[in-house]
């Protein structure tokens, strides 16, 4: 029974991952992250992704502040933030988020405020979606580990 749950969860996780890849939300870099997870760093992926969430939300807040802060936004600063956002997103394999950053940067290079705002909206949307999905994934993983642990009490993860 419990074993089945673990297997079921594993299957669900794979399905979710496949979906995310198909949608272009994630790319191969995420797989690289997973491959870096091993006995010496067992929670590598979730650690890195959590740092990513933390940093990204900060960046998004700042971006919004920059854009909404009066008539003239500081596009250079926006560019710098975007650069960091792009770097971190591409490092964890968040492909769509990164793509929106690219568009956003194009808008900010042109000092196009409206374009930037729209890009920001889109960015927030994409980020939100990604976060949801990744949290879902982690949750499933936790459950799977528990389920697997219960089934094979000798094997503790």
């Amino acid at each position, binding site marked *: 029974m419990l074993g089945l749950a673990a297997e079921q969860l594993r299957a669900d996780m794979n399905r979710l991952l496949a979906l995310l890849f198909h949608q272009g939300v994630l790319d191969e870099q995420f797989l690289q992250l997973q491959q870096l997870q091993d006995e010496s760093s067992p929670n590598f992926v979730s650690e890195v992704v959590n740092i990513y969430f933390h940093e990204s939300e900060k960046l998004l807040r700042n971006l919004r502040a920059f854009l909404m*802060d*009066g008539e003239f936004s500081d596009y250079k600063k926006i560019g710098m933030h975007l650069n960091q956002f792009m770097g971190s997103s591409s490092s964890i394999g968040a492909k769509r988020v990164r*793509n929106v950053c690219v568009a956003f940067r194009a808008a900010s290079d042109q000092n196009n405020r409206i374009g930037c705002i729209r890009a920001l909206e889109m960015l927030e949307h994409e980020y939100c979606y990604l976060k949801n999905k990744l949290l879902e994934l982690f949750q499933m993983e936790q459950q799977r580990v528990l389920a697997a642990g219960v089934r094979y009490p000798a094997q503790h993860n």
Partner: protein
Amino acid sequence: MIVEKRRDEPSDQFPVGMRVLAVDDDPICLRLLETLLRKCQYHVTTTSQAITALEMLRENKNYFDLVISDVHMPDMDGFKLLELVGLEMDLPVIMLSANGDTRLVMQGITHGACDYLLKPVRIEELKNIWQHVVRRRHLDSRDRNSSNIKDKSFVKGNGAGSANSDPDAKLGKKRKDQNGDDDDEQDENEHENEDPSSQKKPRVVWSVELHRKFVAAVNQLGLDKAVPKKILELMNVEKLTRENVASHLQKYRLYLRRISSVASQQANMVAALGGPDSPYLRMDPVNFSDFSGSAQLQNNALRPISPAGVHGKLNTPARLGLHVLSPSGMVQLGHCQILRSSVNESIKYQPGLLPIDQAGTIFQGMPTSLEFDHFQHKKGVIGGEELHPSNNNSGTFPISRNFSDSSSSSSSLASLPNGSLTMQGHVEDRQSRKAFQINSDSPHHLLDHCRWHIPIPQQTAATNLSISHLRLETQNQAGLTSDMMQNKLDICNHADFLSDSGNPSMTTQAAYPCLRVEDPKCTSMVLHGNTGLGLTGQPGFDSLVTEQGRPYSDYMGNELGSLEDVVAAMFKRV
């Protein structure tokens, strides 16, 4: 066994255990980099601050083999770190960036980077970075060996030969192979092609005084006539070899070349702007005998600044010299540590006068340092805090404006060079005191107030924007309450996102769907709380897609080809 005083591990395991210092302000990338490097079996030290990195490097010059650094960092420009490391420690530095723009890469290389990697970094690339260490060692040792044979103890030379032969056969062999490849480089480098040897002498540290002596000697001889041997004699420093001097001279020349191209434009600026003459004419005791007026200006602009990272203060003339050249001054800041006193060189490198706008363009081609400098203004962080007061308020960095606005910039920059150049110089002090922070702690007031005073969408407004794939027609601007703004950031808390988009009133002729949002709450696409496809149950989207078919086909951008897919995918049912 190679005489590697710096290495803890036996060098025949190289590249295993190679000691890398990784610098990146982005914690995610840093963590990833660290893990990847560990996977490659290197020994990794990380820091998110360039300043800390420099301290670590200075603390023990021989403790690291390689430095990997991000280009864009808040506390110091990556390129500047690169130069400092190259000058002071002569370590190979690899640059890292999310931005692969050719100009940036070019900048990296001209600043002396061994390599330029793009994020996301792949492990395959990291597996090969040891080559830069070997290459540098190989060239260095060859230089030193030729000096051994020439003027110093022959014992070392012979000893090196035999020492090299065995224990490190692997490495020795690599060097022999490289020797064949490197011959061309060697010729260009003015180094004699001696037999490669692995003899390693301790690195020479080019301290402030040492460099001053060096520069004085060079000036005395004249750059063209400056040969390492004579420089060595003039400097009269013990334990300095001709090869040390030779390699340092080469670097020096490169820097001068680089400055001079900048400086000549500066000189033109100055000439064109007709800054005050007298202050510029004050000279330094160094021999400036063969100057023209403009050359003087640019020379004064290039005050002696020791490369060792502790830069002397600028004299007044230099200050003023820099002021008119504001953005170029800014660029200068980026290369501050390479400013040398050698006026002679700058004269030689002075090409024709460039018109201001050309120079402006050139400077625009160096966005990184400019950006960096701009941030300095913005935060008022540099020693010259009144730097560009005109710039502080505007969101942009108008290069040409500075050129014309000599008077204001003069006042603003009067203290600039001094402060900023010392800032550059006293990298450790100033920058730690004055946190060059990108504005990550900017007031989050927006969260609480809605200040959405954007004149919302004329359709045309966004036409030239690739992002305009999704236009939010916010009909009700004022409707954006602070509450909603707040909630935007409580990401994923809203489930009623797009609930209203049931009205797919596609009034826009644009080829893609727009959301006509009557209700303020639906303005933001962030409010996307559902775990499932947030777009499920949004019939509006379905109809939007079907109505439009494939609306994205004529939307542009190779760069955004995938973005089209992104948007398309977003609306697709899976």
